[in-house]
């Protein structure tokens, strides 16, 4: 039971990543695939935060001088996650605009039908 308890964050994070991948692999609808990708992104962000987490640590902000720094969480993954989230948003926006254009051209979002460029 203790394995599940103290690794719940890793399990959660990689659960999300693998589910996201599974969606991308299995689903045919473009929107679902994009949702799968963003699920995978959130999973990765959760994983990064889990890496930097100290057991019952606090946010690394010295709001008042006397806050001591022993129990502070590692700030670097948080900086990485900040960037990762923004990249996730950027790619998501681009994907959705492409989806709009795709629907205008192909009339469908079913990726199995969007196979003109092959071989």
């Amino acid at each position, binding site marked *: 039971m203790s394995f599940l308890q103290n690794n719940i964050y890793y399990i959660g994070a990689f659960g999300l990543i693998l589910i996201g991948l599974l969606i991308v692999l299995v689903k045919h609808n473009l929107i679902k695939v994009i949702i799968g990708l963003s699920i995978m992104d959130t999973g990765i962000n959760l994983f990064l935060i889990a890496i930097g987490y100290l*057991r019952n640590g606090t946010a690394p902000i010295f709001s008042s001088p006397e806050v001591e720094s022993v129990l502070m969480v590692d700030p670097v993954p948080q900086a990485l996650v900040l960037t990762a989230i923004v990249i996730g948003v950027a790619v998501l926006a681009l994907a959705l605009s492409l989806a709009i254009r795709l629907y205008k051209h192909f009339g469908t979002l079913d990726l199995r039908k969007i196979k003109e460029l092959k071989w």
Partner: protein
Amino acid sequence: MRSVFSLILLVVIGAGVVFTLSSIPFGSTSSDVGEYYIDSGRADTGATNIVTSVVVGYRAFDTLGEVTVLFVAAIGLGAILAAGRENEEKKKAEWEPASLVLYTGCRFLFPLILLFGAYVFIHGHLTPGGGFQGGAIIASAFLMVYLGCRKKRISKTWARNTESISGLVFVVTGLTGLAVGGHYFLSNFLPEGTLNTLFSAGIIPIIYIAIGLKVGSELTGVIDDLIEESE
């Protein structure tokens, strides 16, 4: 059949990940770089919010890259939507006007959200949050206005100009750091000032304000493009 096969693949990857994770115990990783930032973060950059000191101080180059990513995405989105647009005719969809309650509610809330957004990115180096979060809040304010009162539209050039000016501010401060400061790009050439006061931590607030404006205007531009597309 396909899902079963991909499930097997993912299980194998999961096994590999578990095997690797065994060497990274949860909740007790000791990253010496992280400790260094916590101990000397305030001394080096003057910001009390260590995450901000990492984001804009130590790893400012990352954030510059980060801002460029958003900038690229915004332009890419504009290019893709514009490319498709001119080859089909322009039809104006008739939208029925929003109800009065909704209209006045939005008009009342709009400045408040803007104010809150500004507060967030101005105090980036003191309180949690920063340029990106503030920008997002500002964009949400504009989104609310779009949803609330349909006909309102911000002027295209305004959004684009703030975007490029704030981007320029970021790069120019970096270059002046190179020219003036200890000959390093993005080095903190302004005095750190006293901790926990508004005007402290050298160039970090300036950069964060620039980022806040840039992200705000970019996301608004994105929302604007998407809404224009959906008409």
